[in-house]
């Protein structure tokens, strides 16, 4: 309003100056109308410039036309008419150029603002809200919404959900911009424009704007370009965020792996040292002192057990090493009698005398197609674990039964082995990780182990084409079930 008053005052002032001047001087002074006309054009755009020019012409027309009527088309009159032409031409032209320059500057500022709005890492919803705030402040619209489709989800900023069949939904489906000149049938025509957000040439969302008033073709084209830029900026922000998350995750994994390796080195050293200490001690005793025959046999028996333990540990290391290199354990597969294999493994462990080992093998079990040593290691490992993590004197049940084709190993016929203890169980959150190398479930207490046994067992069963699973509940024991294929 102040602009209009100032323009009216300046027009009145120029009119007054021209009215008081002589005819020859007035011809020159009429050019002063250019000042308010250009000022209006610069300030208010082409409409302001044109309106002020028309007002200037209207103010002078009666005087000029009266002169033409009276004296004919004299040179001063022609000059005055030329002034009118200049004013009518200059007003809209300067206004258009000024408006165009302002629009261009606004576009660049908006692009920078978009970059700034998305420069900080934020979840998609917050980034969208920031972007919407930035665009709403600069696009001079009555309503603005952003929709982004990510995976199967759609995030919306600036409105409720996207209704099927709406303008935004149509743009989201087709990837083509759409313009509706009369949205909603209000007293004033409400223009609505929706254009896709693009990333890599693909529509990833929609920018929708509404305004009570004009929305020119050039402006819509600029908004479409801006939307494409926003789509790219959002995609970049999303990728950067994902990359940062990935890097953080990687760092965390590396730290975790380093810690696990350190723990493993400590545990493995301890595991190796224990049998070695026993071997060293007994061998020194045998070298330095003489014992009777029974004592020598007892010592030899201990040394033998510790040596076997040492061999098992080294075998585990070797298998693990192959596993980490992506190689399967070496197997020499043959027909193995299940009942005999179970009895043999259990018999060795039964000698410890700490637990009640119960064997329940179904009659007429088919032979399995397996490496006998591997099966022995699997059974000893699982039964040994059951004994290690259940109270002395408790029962450990080892069972074997035939499975038909559909339920057997990898769909074929197989034998299902199960080892069930009455120990303290494994927390549910630890179950998915128990077969990972070096992993030891929380609460194992002082039980010895390097966290290799179950990893090696799983790799051996996988190499057979079998399956293994573990069920456990705190204080209700653990059941490990695995299936090996039968001889076809």
């Amino acid at each position, binding site marked *: 309003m102040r602009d209009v008053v100032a323009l009216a005052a300046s027009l009145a002032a120029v009119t007054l100056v021209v009215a008081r001047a002589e005819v020859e001087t007035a011809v020159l002074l009429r050019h002063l109308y250019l000042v308010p006309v250009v000022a209006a054009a610069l300030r208010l755009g082409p409409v302001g410039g044109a309106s002020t020019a028309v007002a200037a012409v209207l103010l002078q*027309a009666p005087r000029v036309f009266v002169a033409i009527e009276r004296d004919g088309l004299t040179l001063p009159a022609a000059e005055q008419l030329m002034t009118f032409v200049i004013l009518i031409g200059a007003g809209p032209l300067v206004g258009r150029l000024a408006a165009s320059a302002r629009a261009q500057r606004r576009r660049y500022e908006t692009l920078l603002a978009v970059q700034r709005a998305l420069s900080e890492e934020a979840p998609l919803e917050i980034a969208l809200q920031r972007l919407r705030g930035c665009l709403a402040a600069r696009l001079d619209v009555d309503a603005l919404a952003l929709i982004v489709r990510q995976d199967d989800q759609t995030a919306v900023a600036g409105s409720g959900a996207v209704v099927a*069949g709406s303008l935004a939904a*149509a743009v989201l489906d087709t990837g083509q911009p759409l313009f509706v000149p*009369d949205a909603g049938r209000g*007293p004033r025509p409400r223009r609505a424009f929706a254009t896709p957000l693009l990333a890599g040439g693909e529509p990833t969302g929609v920018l*929708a*704007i509404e305004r009570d008033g*004009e*929305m020119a073709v050039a402006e819509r084209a600029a908004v479409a370009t801006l939307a494409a830029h926003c789509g790219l900026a959002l995609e970049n922000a999303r990728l950067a965020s994902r990359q940062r998350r990935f890097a953080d995750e990687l760092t965390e994994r590396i730290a975790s792996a380093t810690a696990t390796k350190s723990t493993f080195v400590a545990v493995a050293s301890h595991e190796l040292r224990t049998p070695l200490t026993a071997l060293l001690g007994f061998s020194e005793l045998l070298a330095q002192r003489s014992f009777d025959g029974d004592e020598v046999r007892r010592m030899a028996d201990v040394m033998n057990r510790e040596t076997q333990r040492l061999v098992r540990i080294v075998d585990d290391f070797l298998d693990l090493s192959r596993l980490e290199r992506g190689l399967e354990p070496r197997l020499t597969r043959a027909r193995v009698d299940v009942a005999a294999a179970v009895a043999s493994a259990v018999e060795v462990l039964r000698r410890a005398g700490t637990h009640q080992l119960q064997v329940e093998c179904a009659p007429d079990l088919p032979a399995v197609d397996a490496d006998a040593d591997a099966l022995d290691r699997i059974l000893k490992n699982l039964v040994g674990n059951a004994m290690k993590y259940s109270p002395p004197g408790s029962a450990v049940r080892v069972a074997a039964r035939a499975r038909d084709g559909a339920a057997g190993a990898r769909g074929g016929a197989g034998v299902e082995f199960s080892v069930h203890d009455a120990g303290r169980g494994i927390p549910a959150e630890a179950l998915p990780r128990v077969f990972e190398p070096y992993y030891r479930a929380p609460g194992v207490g002082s039980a010895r182990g390097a966290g290799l046994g179950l990893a090696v067992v799983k790799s051996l069963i996988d190499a057979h084409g079998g399956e293994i699973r573990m069920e456990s509940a705190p204080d209700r024991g653990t059941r490990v079930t695995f299936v090996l294929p039968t001889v076809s």
Partner: protein
Amino acid sequence: MWALERPWTLRQSGVLADTPLALIATLGGAWLSAAWLAAGGWLPDAILRVVALACMHGGLLAVALAWAQADGGVRLPPGSLALMVLLVAGGTAGATLEARASLALVGAPCWLAILAVRGQLVGLGLGPGIPARPTLVGGTLGALLGGHLLFSASQTLGYPLRPEGWPALLVPWAYDVGANVISAECFFRGALFNRLQRRWSFGPAAAVATALALVRYLADPLLPGQIEVMVGALFYVTALGVVNCWLLWWAGSLVPGLLASALFFLAYRALDVS
């Protein structure tokens, strides 16, 4: 937000949809019949004038009401369109018979006001409320244009003000208020421009509506035939048309444009162009 929350369909109807063609044909027939009868000397020219004005202004108002009914999604009282034609005809007939009877011409604007207050003319930009600031701006612009017309016509063409005084101006003013201004504003701005601006941008919509309004004024047999008056009409009707389109576009109301036109024609009628 409409673009997200409302189902969207492409507009199907054309610009001339819902035009009461039967009524228009009837009015056209009546006009032609009256002209034929007048040409044969069987009908006085005064009656032909009444019929012509009633058909033209009444027809424009009837079309505007029909479009408002369709665009605003409202139902007008039965017979509203015919009533509007009859009111204009009655007013024009009254004005022909007796100067004071020209007050009967306000019947049509009164009927429009009643419909507007009942919220049945929102499709024309005539709602129950009146926007104060745009109305003030419209009044100012109309007064400026009218003032400029008075000044330039008296300075350039030497037309004086009517010497008869206010009572003699009653008939033309009543005609403007009761027929000329409301029919032009309701049809060319409220109906036609309103429909066009909902399909196109402001510039083309205003250009078409103003050009057609200009044709209507230039084709008016009552317009004085002097070339300078024709040129003046061309300029002022164009300026008034663009201004009124802008007022409707800006305010969403036809009232500012009605006021601007009324004030402009008030000034125009004050000139003695005979």
